[in-house]
């Protein structure tokens, strides 16, 4: 009987689900993905987590609660650091401590598959192979990782083309037939927040409904590396992606306004968004709005803010 491995539809799944799915499927596991984030997921997470944690991590715990009794093993990646150019780039403290946090919050958990992605110790491939070493079925782990990383490459290309990582979960891209004319609003935020409509309350749709086109940019590895070489780089890997995306949008994106989406108490976001905000307003003179999301955010309030921002851009353009 094939064993089931649970993967939470949260946080890094929005980056790496293609890799994980292929890797475990190749090893002969049944991959069980948790359901899309709903009211219930968030409420569960909020109840379990300390109140000060950011919304995506709370939701992650909600996903664990939903999936943990349906699977034989649970994937809990520990994203520590990776090398770009000549320097080390880290995950945020919450990403590094995610397995510790999960173990502290839940009393009973299935077997935990914990790849420790620490480039200072091992390559990613070794980390994944190590993580499944004690789980049996390790024969072919090398080949499985090779296929998985090829799948991840294809998936990244598709993410860039479609402007959304949701294809990994089997959704088709948002309607690309929208007219290109009119207002363009650049959007910068972590994919696990922006594209999880249970958390972001469909902020991208709200931009569309207000009559503007959301413009997103997913940087290539080369663009991230260029950003990493700058004197002003922050040594957080996922923030580097946001900085590279914002730079591209501001410099060549022909955008009328910039929307920064972050969760309340996102520690890295406090720094990144401040840098992007300063550069957008002082250097590029692009109107910028910052939306902070948490479990108390009301949909009507969010709608009003986006609508009035787009109205403002329209007035300004005239």
């Amino acid at each position: 009987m094939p064993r089931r491995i649970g993967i939470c539809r949260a946080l890094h799944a929005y980056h790496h689900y293609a890799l994980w799915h292929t890797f475990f499927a190749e090893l002969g596991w049944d991959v069980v993905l948790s359901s899309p984030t709903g009211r219930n997921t968030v409420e569960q997470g909020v109840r379990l987590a300390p109140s000060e944690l950011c919304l995506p991590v709370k939701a992650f715990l909600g996903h664990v609660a939903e999936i943990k009794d349906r699977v034989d093993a649970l994937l809990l990646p520990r994203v520590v650091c990776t090398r770009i150019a000549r320097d080390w780039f880290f995950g945020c403290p919450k990403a590094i401590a995610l397995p510790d946090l999960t173990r502290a919050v839940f009393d009973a958990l299935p077997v935990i598959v914990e790849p420790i992605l620490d480039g200072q110790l091992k390559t990613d491939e070794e980390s994944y192979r190590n993580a499944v070493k004690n789980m049996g079925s390790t024969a072919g782990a090398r080949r499985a990782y090779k296929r998985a990383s090829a799948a991840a490459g294809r998936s990244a290309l598709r993410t860039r083309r479609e402007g959304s990582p949701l294809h990994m979960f089997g959704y088709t891209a948002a309607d690309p037939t929208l007219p290109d004319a009119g207002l363009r609003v650049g959007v910068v935020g972590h994919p696990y927040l922006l594209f999880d409509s249970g958390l972001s309350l469909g902020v991208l749709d709200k931009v569309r409904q207000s009559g503007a086109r959301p413009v997103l940019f997913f940087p290539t590895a080369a663009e991230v590396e260029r950003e990493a070489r700058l004197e002003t780089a922050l040594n957080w890997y996922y923030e580097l992606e946001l900085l590279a995306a914002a730079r591209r949008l501001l410099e060549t994106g022909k955008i009328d306004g910039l929307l920064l989406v972050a969760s309340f108490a996102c520690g890295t976001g406090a720094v990144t968004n401040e840098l992007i905000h300063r550069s957008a307003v002082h250097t590029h003179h692009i109107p910028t709005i910052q939306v902070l999301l948490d479990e108390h955010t009301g949909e009507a309030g969010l709608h009003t803010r986006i609508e009035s921002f787009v109205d403002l851009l329209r007035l300004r353009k005239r």
Partner: protein
Amino acid sequence: MRVAFPHMGSAPIALEGLLRVLGAEVVLPPKPTREITELGARLAPEMMCVPFKLTLGNMFRCLEAGADVLAYVSGSWSCRFGYYGRLQAQILRDEGFQFRLLELRHDRIPGIVREVLRLNRGRMSSAVLNSVRAFRIGWLKSTAVEEIESRFREALPNARDARGCCRLVDTLIQEVRTTSKPAALTRIRDTARARFDALPRNGRTRVLRVKLVGESFCVIEPFINFDIIARMGEMGVLVEPSLTSHRWIGFHGFRLNKGEVGRMRRLSAPYWRYCVGGEDQNSVGHLLLAAQRRFDGVIHVHPFGCMPGTVVQPTMAKAARDNNISYLPLSLDEHSSETGVVTRLEAFASLIEKRRRRHVV
């Protein structure tokens, strides 16, 4: 060159001594006040942690007072502390100040050496000599302050007159601040114990012991933690901090105490695997150590929104449960109310007191 550095606890005393001997002019950071906190909070990103806001307000005032070099301990790691210097410099430049940013980090050592040489007009021999003297004075001041503060912590729960005890610690620290003679500093350090012992005692036989752990700034800076050590001391509780200004300088400035870091790592391994900042690993380790050493409780402080401080909380709670030790987490920021914090401290003190009595009887 007029140097300023962020204020934290009693660290400025040693740093000021060190820099003066080195030949730099020092703009002493003002002690934090409500007004400085509000200034920092106005300029800083809203979601930034409170040590950032406090030190930003502090540096603003230093620049107004004429500083032209800002020195920060800095680095590239997962906690936001490593980016304080760079981000604050950008904010302060946008406010119209002109200054040089001196980042004290391991990969910038040649630059730091150049600064020291410049202070000594490029003469290597006098630079070396002055550096040796400077580090000696800095170290003596730091150890003297450490000794005074630790004697004070022990004396306070037993003192009949708590005010008098607090006055004595202020007097002694002032003596350290004003003198730069090695002999005088050694004398102050060596007589501190006797001077505290001479205070009249209140006859308390049972002193409760609490370990204070958490993020460095919140543990060390009395303004932001509402002076937990003195307040609990007045309630008859001896509070032992996991970090002091002296130990912080040793840890983060000169990478001393490697043995202790390793020990904390081993202790905390079952609960916490990676040190991500905010003293998370040390906090877990110190909690377990406190349980082994039969402390009566642990207080864990961190700034609101501190990434490591927040994420380690469930682990701290679980470790405290597993090891049967009372645990009080406190999240602090510029909006914390003194009354709220003090009420919780009082409740905690009476809880551990009751618990102790139950176990003894």
